[in-house]
């Protein structure tokens, strides 16, 4: 199996990496680049912990071959905060107690970002549907949904 050089744009930075076709996007982010915010949960596209955004679309990085997303804009959880200023969705998760062990959190936040980008004022039901692909074993989801709804409000007040 031939290795090849490919360009990846992650959180606005360019990386030129030597990869095998079998390298998954998750392995690339965690092992090659060292961005460990994206988590390995199930490895089989069921839990959503590995969710990242590729050209704005939510993608399961455990089940994506890295080579298929070369030259595309990839956003991981590390790309949301501006220095020490948290993104409104991250801040809402902190303020509303939506984080326990934190393992599902990066995926939850990125999926919520896609929801709020598409639908700035979701109903509670719409938030639940949007998060259908992200599982949490700790919180029971209520505070996560509260946080997303609150983030929708604060975003509406001029933040991005």
């Amino acid at each position, binding site marked *: 199996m031939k290795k090849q050089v490919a360009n990846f744009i992650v959180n606005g930075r360019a990386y030129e990496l030597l990869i095998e*076709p079998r390298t998954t996007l998750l392995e690339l982010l965690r092992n090659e680049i060292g961005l460990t915010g994206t988590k390995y949960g199930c490895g089989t596209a*069921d839990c*959503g912990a590995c*969710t990242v955004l590729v050209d704005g679309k*939510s*993608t*399961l990085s455990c089940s994506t071959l890295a080579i298929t997303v070369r030259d595309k804009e990839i956003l991981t959880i590390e790309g949301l905060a501006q220095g020490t200023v948290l993104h409104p969705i991250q801040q809402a998760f902190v303020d509303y107690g939506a984080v326990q062990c934190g393992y599902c959190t990066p995926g939850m936040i990125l999926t919520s970002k896609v929801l709020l980008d598409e639908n700035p004022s979701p109903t509670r039901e719409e938030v639940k549907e949007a998060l*259908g692909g992200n599982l949490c074993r700790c919180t029971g989801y209520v505070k996560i949904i509260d946080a997303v709804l609150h983030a929708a409000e604060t975003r509406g007040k001029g933040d991005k």
Partner: protein
Amino acid sequence: MYRVLRPFEYFEPTTVAEVVEILSRYDGKAKVLAGGMDLVPKMRRRDLSPEYIISLQRVKGLDYVNGDGKTGLQIGALASLRSVELSPAVVWDYISLYEAIHQIASVQVKTNGTLVGNLCVATPASDVATILMALGATLKVAGTGRVKDVPIEDFFTGPGRTIMATNEIVTEVSVPEVPPGTGGAFLNLTRVKEDIAKVSAAVVITTANAVCQTAKIALGAVAPTPLRCHQAEALLTGKKLESIDSELVAQLAADACAPITDLRSDAEYRKDMARVLTRRAIERALERAKS
């Protein structure tokens, strides 16, 4: 579960003809990659370890959802489930198809996974296969030098198996136009929302002058493939709407299925629920046909 995938050679052809040529060259050892939402997890579990993978990513002209209820719907091989779900034509004119896709829980899976890919995986529990069977869909199967049209009821041959040869791919699925007076419904039962269906029922009925003109009833997850229930359909065709006994029709549909007992449900419950869901789907389809 294995962290690392087994190695393979990777191709990115730019035309359907090239895809078919590479498939022919490796005679069954190559697998096609669209969204990868079925292929990669299977490779992770080592259920499948293809030596050659052919990505459809760079093949132009396969990502589309065209048409509407008046002209019929054409869905290209690379159209994601999500793009079909959000298509205005589907929401307005094919509500039952929308419902079948909408109840799939993971937005990520729908964003990356393709509708055609779901059909090619050919699980008998496929929600989209079941509703497309009731909608009378046709698949375009491309092979060496030609494309043939295959009605969906001829496409599946068993769990995970289709009529496709190892060097063929599906390039499009098309759904006929919806005449006025048509109503459709899709219902299923699962253990939890994210789970695969235990049993599903899809009904599409076309009426005119308060008489049922055509009816298609399809059941999923209760046979080796999604199942059309012709005997039950015959009880509806030509009947005055007011004289339709949906319970009787549903019973005939349930009689036609042959469910198994597995981790999701047992055969007896599936057969019983096939009857209940069919009856409810008939009633909802008839309601929709009237409005």
